[in-house]
């Protein structure tokens, strides 16, 4: 039987890279989807608002694990066999998009109504109002909660282990299967997650303080 040694630790760190890759995919995809959802939620068109809020309700009311099962096993049985990375990336994108959409909608609505009126009186059209007046202000409000949510994304990538994607958690299970030292192994795994998430938490808190100070 093996003991936890340098080789196993290197294996864990290499797997952590996939955790990072998956987090980045989820964040990038979630950002695109989330922006679309946020804009749809504040749209003047009722159908768009309804569609977006319906989507957000469904995703927020469904465990991420089930979304993962659906996109890996569910789509697989229907003939769309996705590799684990794609299935996990897709699921996390759907998940992150719903939450970011809701966070960002709040930030857009937090920009004072008078900014809309002032830019309207200057003759800006709706697209110009968003691009030059509203979104630049909403982005400032959005940075702290968005960075905070990235912590959730990093931790939730661990669920990808259940469809056989070898990221940090799955790598921990594999190492444990050969060393049989679960407490030590999973402590190492936890430490690596913490090392990834703690800087993000710190950044979120610092940014929040900064944005309060700026007011």
């Amino acid at each position, binding site marked *: 039987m093996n003991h936890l040694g340098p080789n196993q630790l290197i294996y864990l760190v290499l797997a952590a890279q996939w955790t990072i890759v998956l987090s980045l995919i989820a964040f990038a995809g979630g950002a695109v989807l989330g922006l679309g959802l946020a804009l749809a939620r504040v749209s003047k068109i009722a159908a768009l608002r309804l569609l977006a809020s319906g989507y957000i309700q469904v995703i927020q009311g469904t465990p991420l694990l089930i979304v993962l099962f659906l996109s890996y096993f569910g789509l697989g049985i229907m003939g769309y066999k996705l590799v684990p990375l794609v299935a996990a990336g897709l699921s996390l994108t759907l998940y992150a998009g719903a939450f970011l959409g809701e966070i960002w909608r709040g930030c857009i609505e937090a920009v*004072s109504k*008078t*900014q809309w*009126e*002032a*830019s*309207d*009186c*200057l*003759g*800006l059209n709706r697209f*110009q109002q968003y691009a*030059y*007046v509203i979104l*630049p*202000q909403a982005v*400032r409000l959005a940075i702290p909660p968005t960075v905070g949510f990235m912590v959730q994304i990093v931790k939730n990538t661990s669920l990808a282990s259940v469809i056989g994607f070898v990221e940090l958690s799955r790598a921990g299970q594999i190492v444990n299967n050969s060393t049989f030292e679960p407490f030590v192994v999973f402590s190492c795994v936890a430490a690596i997650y913490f090392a990834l998430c703690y800087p993000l938490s710190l950044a979120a808190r610092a940014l929040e303080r900064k944005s309060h100070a700026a007011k």
Partner: protein
Amino acid sequence: MPQSEAMVRVAGVVKEFGPLRVLHGVTFDVARGQTVAIVGRSGSGKSTLLRCIAGLESIQGGAIEVCGNAVGLPGSANRARLRRDVGMVFQSYNLFPHLTVERNITLALTLVKKQPKTEARKVAAEVLGLVGLMDKIAAYPEQLSGGQQQRVAIARSLALSPQVMLFDEVTSALDPELTAEVLAVMEDLARRGMTMITVTHEMGFARRVADLVVFMHQGQVWEIGPTVELFANPKTAEFTQFIGSEL
């Protein structure tokens, strides 16, 4: 255009917020170059009236025309035209906090009027000169006093060379000293022949600068007339009481 032709025509305007009727058929005309002061107690509907003229509120009855263009009815097609003709200054300044003073002014010039950047910057310098804030061109709004912010807001509207300027209680958030500097800018504009409609609590300013005073009460034009005449011979008990309490 002859002096007598109305620049702004407000005819029987009715405004409702749900079941609440706040304007009960308001009528008056503003001629080119005239300065009009709309006065009255809080809740008399004067700000709402101004917002209707600015096209920020829809109206449920009557008609508003600015430079011959209809305003405020649902689906008014000439909104862009109205935006060119009417400048609006708000009580809360509403500068764009993330942009410099200069960009606050050039934004609409480049986006809406499609002016080249260099030309827009020249206009910005010009209008900032008019309000005496040339030295603040690179500042951000939060670095300015309330009075300075309000003068920038006036400059921002002026840059688009509107035919009519609307002022909605623009000094209500300012202390007396800052109020004076903003009113000085507005008096200067009036002297230059700008057509202005001002909702104000500054009775001194109304007496000094306005050609026409509109006294609003309970969503109606209660008294209207040339400033000197109106203040000398108030016809209604409400207006008498109103100017009595202001003194």
